[in-house]
């Protein structure tokens, strides 16, 4: 049952991902990205991690894709159809395949991965939360600081200059 679900979702995910990188229309790419991210949330659900699935939907599916669409809107010009693949794209393909092969082989070689149990442990929101606010409290607070700095930085970088240039 899980295997079937996983197969369907991962097929959708990979198809959408390929769609993102090869689509000729940039808006289609963004929509493919949305679907891909939603499928990742589905993968999380298969892994019995409902909280992270929700977070994925909200932040990736909601916030990030919207921000990317906004950026597309603000930079929208007629050059998008013209700028597709650069000259290196065959090399890029070869490199990607090589990475894929190397990493797969290393996964199959790894003893640690074969020795894990075949059952999935559900991650309850409650215990996840207690872990986040006890063991990981300080990094959690620091992450908020990172977000604040990124926010301010984004505003400073993106705003118009005073003299209207």
């Amino acid at each position: 049952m899980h295997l079937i679900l996983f197969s369907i979702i991962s097929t959708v995910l990979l198809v959408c991902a390929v769609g993102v990188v090869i689509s000729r229309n940039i808006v289609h790419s963004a929509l493919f990205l949305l679907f891909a991210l939603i499928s990742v949330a589905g993968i999380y659900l298969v892994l019995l991690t409902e909280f992270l699935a929700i977070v994925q939907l909200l932040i990736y599916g909601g916030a990030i894709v919207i921000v990317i669409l906004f950026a597309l809107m603000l930079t929208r010009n007629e050059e998008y159809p013209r700028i597709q693949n650069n000259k290196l794209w065959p090399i890029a393909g070869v490199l990607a395949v090589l990475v894929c092969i190397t990493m797969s082989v290393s996964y199959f070689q790894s003893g640690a991965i074969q020795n894990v149990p075949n059952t999935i442990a559900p991650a309850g929101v409650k215990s996840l939360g207690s872990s986040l606010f006890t063991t990981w409290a300080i990094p959690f607070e620091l992450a908020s600081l990172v977000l604040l700095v990124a926010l301010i930085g984004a505003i400073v970088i993106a705003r118009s200059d005073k003299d209207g240039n």
Partner: protein
Amino acid sequence: MLELIHFNILSVLLFSVGLYGVLARKSAILIIMAIELMLNAVNINFIAAAAFNHGNGLFTNFDGHILTIFIITIAAAEVGLALALILRIFRNKATVNVDSFDIMKL
């Protein structure tokens, strides 16, 4: 039966697709989208490892999930900053083609 290696392979495939996107495309915004794909590949790996590990071994039960939360946080910050930068460059150069972002060249 569902095993950890399935998720690993899924993650590797997703990562490679993202890598191809980063390397092969010219549009800066598309490169960012591809980076998001790569980040998600990593996240899948983390959560799968955490879910199958049951808290044995090197990592305790929730470390993978927590790290994923942090990655999502950082990714949000990164996308915000990166798009701000792209907007800025677009305002100056009227293009998002990374071919023209070569002002660092000597």
